[in-house]
């Protein structure tokens, strides 16, 4: 581990601990929901870096198609993978939260559906390349899918904003007695957002490094095979 990485890791670790402490102990329980509401800090904390990751896929894929530089393919792939993980966290914390508050694990709320759609699209993005045999095709095809997938992000979210239909039990925000009122709640939220964002960056850098090392290994192995006469 380089110096930079070490520092990054230490900061990440510290912020994570602080976020945990604030979210689980210092922030007061919600007036209506009680302690269950604490899921919120992880729920929202993970989705924002998730969006960030998906937008990076868009950016990286465009860069790849223009430059045809494999590094951009690797960068966007890693970003997509992490985004998918974060999206999965939202999709598991959500139902866990939903059961005690709504009584069911799932309701066909526009927001839930759009999150699910996003997850499906990026699941396809991350996994599709497994099914493409030709190395030279793989980055190109998944870059196109990455762009199309990332275009969905604003769509799905706009659709829930513009057409506010019936949310079964709308998210409790800003209500008089519940919602983020207490300053400690705010601190917990920001800490957790910060922690997840740092985590994203850390994982992304490690992931890219790993992929590049793998690429080099492959190249060296091919050369070795060549030297040995097939």
């Amino acid at each position, binding site marked *: 581990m380089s110096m930079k990485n070490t520092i990054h890791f230490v900061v990440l670790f510290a912020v994570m601990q602080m976020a945990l402490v604030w979210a689980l102990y210092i922030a007061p329980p919600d007036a209506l929901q009680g302690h269950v509401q604490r899921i919120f800090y992880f729920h929202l904390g993970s989705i924002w870096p998730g969006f960030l990751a998906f937008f990076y896929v868009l950016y990286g894929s465009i860069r790849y198609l223009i430059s045809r530089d494999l590094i951009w393919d690797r960068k966007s792939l890693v970003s997509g993978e992490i985004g998918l993980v974060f999206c999965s966290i939202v999709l598991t914390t959500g139902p866990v939260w939903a059961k005690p508050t709504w009584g069911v694990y799932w309701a066909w709320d526009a927001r839930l559906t759009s999150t699910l759609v996003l997850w499906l*699209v990026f699941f396809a993005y991350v996994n*599709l390349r497994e099914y493409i045999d030709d190395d030279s095709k793989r980055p190109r*095809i998944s870059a196109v*899918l990455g762009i199309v997938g990332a275009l*969905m992000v604003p769509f799905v979210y706009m659709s829930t904003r513009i057409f506010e239909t019936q949310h079964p039990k709308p998210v409790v925000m800003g209500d008089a007695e519940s919602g983020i009122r207490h300053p400690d709640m705010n601190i917990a939220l920001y800490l957790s957002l910060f922690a997840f964002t740092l985590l994203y960056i850390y994982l992304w850098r490690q992931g890219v490094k790993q992929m590049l090392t793998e690429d080099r290994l492959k190249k060296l192995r091919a050369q070795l095979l060549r030297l040995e006469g097939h």
Partner: protein
Amino acid sequence: MSGQVLSVFSAVLRKDLRRELRSREIFISSFLFSVILLMVIFYASKTSGVQLEAMSSGALWLCILFSGTIGLNRTHQSEMVNGCYRALILAPVEGGWLYLAKVCSNALLLIVMELLLLPLLVLFYHTDIGKNSGALLAALVLGTLAFTAVGTLVVVITANTRMKDVLFPVVQLPLVVPTLIAGVNATEAALQGKTADNWLQFLVAVNVVFLAAGFLLYDFLLEE
């Protein structure tokens, strides 16, 4: 340039339509598939006690989605036989125009299919399709265009994979969900005599975004 574009456009359109008219393969299969779907949906909902009329917009869009997916798969398959898609790749034309031509021919077939489906809705579901036929047509055309805009792109994406038949619907359908929701709602409003401007605008936006994306990205898919 515009002469070139027209020539390519008409070449692809004519070829696809001629192939289709010769075999009527996609047409017949999507139409029959839709009839079956209408029946299944009817029987599925009979037990749930919904009113027939309330189901028509959803049933219509399920038919569009499902037979559209099958149709897109088939058209694309026909490009793969004998390596015909290579002829398209090797042609000295902008991929964007090829894409638009393909979207057009696919959408055209699907829209004709839908028009045939409407009388069936009247027959089977007692739907009154005349209340606001302008809005109905707008909803169908815009929705179908958005659907094929996504589908035509995705079918080529998944064609490069090993399990294309399985992966195509899996990749395509999530991308199509916003279109479906907007389409169902716009159609529902039209069937009730209203015009759902917001949903129609939404469909226009979806079309603009996906057609533009397809136009710009298709060339990148046309390599081997």
